[in-house]
């Protein structure tokens, strides 16, 4: 069991190191192969670990493997340890599997870029970091992975570093995530203080003994980190800008894996959250708010990638909601299916962008159904999965979440239920808006045509094909009323707090599918009438400006910080610090000049000085005695 886990973790690291150390000595294509193959080796390791875990009896499915004691300070000790259990094996499979497909796709997408080797080194670094995050056996190693994925994200968003927008976006991502990292660390420190350990099992055993203030603060700290990493409101502003990175990066990091790290954290640390129910419900509420706001904003975006980005934000809102009410199995299930269809959508969008020579504005797209037939099918499948039309993957997972909200009951449950159903309506609308704009209708007058090597290289189309397949059948691991091995599997690590009945499931599904089709219908009607979905100009403006979050943060944080810096510079730095430095300098020169005058060169005055010194010293010695 552990061997598979270690191979899974270390293979991408080896790949990254190999590419880095080889430098210019290997061709760009070789770098791509190294990265892809190392990720697939990791997938092999994950599969091994999964089967080994499956083969073991249910009591023995948690396997903690420590390489060495990394940090020891007094009684506190942290080891470099990985945990192989049902939850982590699923995450390993998703990260390495989807990651492998995306890295393979990058070989075609990024082929010909001057800095391809750097790209693949970063990609392997990212895969390693994400695997460290999900395989960690203690909070400290989780935090290490957490920080490293942030770093990899920064490096990859700003990959085309000559573009100022990309650099600015990378900085923004890093800074917002730093805020979440800070709260996470504070929570971890509190854990060390109160429980004396950071190992999962150690902490979870001691959770009951902690005061409610402590548990709430820790949970809040962890939630802060999760919210930043998963781009939920209010720390979401970085995700749309992160689309400046290459499309495979958006697919891997900002759809399939990194942004889901927050959800993973919520599920992994569920004992802490269960002991702090207010915070857990806060997570659910944030998720619901995000899914609605993001869904609404997606209705008016022009950039194809930004629409998909807001869609990601919205879907993660669903996952947060699920984790917030205790439906951990469905949260992870949706994480997995979302990885499939969101990556699919991004990669298909990438094919489109590639085909149209880097055009990303959907107003300048259209009628690509005939030019890109396979991509068209793929995109359609992805859209159907996203909206939640059976039998595609999204249907099974999303409806599971919504019916769990129904099963929760109470004020919270009903609010979440209604919100999530409204979200389905929005999802249908924006998703099909996107589909129609890109693939249907006549091509626009100034359509950009591309390099005409067909739809795309095989390295791009084959992964898309795989993902299409997964988005079609990937959801069939949970069929309500028939079988649910997936949620059972996750339930061994994190037992669900709420289970919807089969009746609730079917009822919810019916409503959700209906709403999804209604939303699609709206989109279709708008498309046919050549108008927008949102007609009121006021609403339009608010949504186009992403509900003015960026402007709000600018006024609240950025402007005051700049003003403070300027004030400090003109009132403190220059008059006080710089002036005193000058004073010290000139004072030293003056003193030096004065001392210099003492050196008369006369031997006798030196002798006199010695004599006087002796006189003084004698007095001192006598007095001290």
């Amino acid at each position, binding site marked *: 069991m552990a061997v598979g886990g270690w191979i899974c973790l270390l293979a991408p690291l080896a790949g990254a190191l190999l590419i880095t150390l080889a430098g210019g000595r290997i061709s760009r294509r070789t770098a791509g192969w190294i990265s892809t193959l190392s990720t697939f080796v990791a997938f092999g390791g994950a599969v091994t670990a999964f089967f080994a875990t499956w083969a073991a009896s249910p009591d023995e499915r948690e396997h903690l493997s420590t390489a060495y004691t990394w940090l020891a300070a007094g009684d506190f000790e942290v080891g470099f340890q990985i945990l192989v259990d049902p939850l982590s094996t699923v995450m390993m499979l998703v990260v390495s599997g989807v990651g492998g497909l995306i890295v393979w796709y990058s070989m075609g997408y990024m082929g010909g870029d001057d800095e391809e080797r750097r790209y693949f080194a970063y990609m392997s670094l990212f895969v390693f970091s994400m695997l460290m995050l999900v395989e960690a056996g203690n909070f400290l190693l989780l935090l290490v992975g957490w920080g490293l994925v942030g770093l990899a994200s920064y490096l990859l968003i700003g990959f085309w570093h000559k573009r100022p927008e990309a650099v600015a976006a990378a900085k923004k991502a890093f800074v917002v995530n730093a805020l979440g990292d800070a709260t996470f660390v504070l929570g971890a420190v509190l854990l060390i203080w109160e429980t004396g350990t950071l190992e999962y099992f150690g902490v979870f055993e001691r959770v009951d003994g902690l005061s409610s203030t402590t548990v709430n603060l820790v949970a809040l700290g962890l939630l802060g980190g999760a919210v930043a990493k998963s781009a939920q409101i209010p720390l979401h502003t970085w995700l749309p800008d992160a689309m400046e990175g290459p499309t495979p990066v958006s697919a891997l990091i900002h759809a399939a894996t990194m942004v889901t790290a927050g959800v993973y954290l919520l599920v992994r640390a569920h004992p802490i959250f269960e002991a702090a129910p207010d915070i857990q419900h806060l997570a659910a509420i944030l998720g619901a708010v995000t899914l609605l706001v993001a869904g609404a904003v997606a209705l008016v975006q022009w950039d194809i990638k930004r629409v998909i980005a807001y869609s990601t934000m919205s879907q993660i809102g669903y996952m947060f909601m699920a984790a917030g009410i205790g439906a951990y199995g469905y949260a992870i299930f949706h994480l997995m299916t979302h990885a499939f269809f969101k990556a699919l959508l991004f990669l298909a969008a990438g094919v489109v962008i590639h085909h149209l020579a880097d055009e990303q504005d959907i107003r300048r797209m259209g009628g690509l159904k005939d030019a890109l037939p396979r991509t068209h099918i793929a995109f359609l499948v992805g859209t159907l999965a996203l909206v939640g039309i059976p039998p595609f993957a999204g249907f099974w997972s999303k409806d599971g979440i919504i019916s769990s909200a129904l099963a929760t009951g109470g004020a919270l449950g009903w609010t979440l239920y209604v919100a999530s159903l409204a979200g389905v309506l929005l999802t249908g609308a924006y998703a099909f808006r996107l589909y129609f704009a890109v693939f249907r209708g006549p091509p626009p007058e100034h359509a950009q045509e591309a390099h005409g090597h067909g739809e795309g290289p095989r390295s791009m189309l084959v992964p898309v094909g795989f993902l299409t397949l997964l988005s079609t059948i990937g959801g069939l691991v949970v069929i309500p009323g028939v079988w649910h091995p997936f949620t059972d599997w996750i339930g061994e690590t994190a037992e669900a707090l709420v289970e919807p009945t089969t009746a609730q499931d079917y009822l919810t599904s019916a409503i959700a599918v209906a709403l999804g089709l209604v939303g699609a219908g709206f989109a279709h009607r708008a498309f046919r009438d050549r108008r927008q979905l949102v007609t009121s100009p006021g609403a339009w403006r608010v949504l186009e400006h992403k509900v003015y979050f960026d402007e709000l943060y600018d006024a609240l944080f950025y402007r005051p910080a700049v003003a403070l810096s300027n004030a400090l510079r003109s009132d403190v730095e220059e008059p006080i610090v710089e002036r005193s430095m000058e004073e010290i300098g000139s004072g030293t020169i003056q003193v030096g000049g004065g001392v210099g005058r003492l050196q008369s060169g006369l031997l006798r005055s030196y002798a*006199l000085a010695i004599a006087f010194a002796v006189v003084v010293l004698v007095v001192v010695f006598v007095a001290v005695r």
Partner: protein
Amino acid sequence: MGNVLVWAVWFLAAGGCLASGVAVVSLTNPFFSALALIGNLASLAVLYLLLAAEFLAAAQVLVYAGAVMVMFLFVVAYLGGKADAPWVGGPPLLRTAAVVAASALLVEVVVVLGLAWGDELSAPAEVADGFGSPASIGELFLTDHLLAFEITSIVLLVAAIGGVVLGTAREREEAA
């Protein structure tokens, strides 16, 4: 009676010491100053004898007065007229300050001595007959103070080499 003799000898020696010291410092002809120093050394030798340091007294006369001062006299003779030392004092501030420093030091010493006199200084230890004899000093040099002995010899060696170097440099200068 013996006591009176000792006191008399002491006064003579101490007086000679101080007088010759003043002479060394104040005479203008360095030759006479060197001779005065020889007198000083001799008086000191007498004082050493009174302090039961026979070997040192002998060494003082033989080495110091006999060898070092003779070397001094040779150099003075060599320098001839150039060695004249008129009493030009220097800046008046320096002169007063020097006098002040010297007297301050003297006062301090007297005070310290006064403070300590009552207890210890009036009761010197009993010494054996062999105290200060060459045998006892030699024994110390070769056992407890062997390191000092060896280092002193190294110092002398270095001084000899230094002298030779200074001398050779002179000759090379002349040749060039």
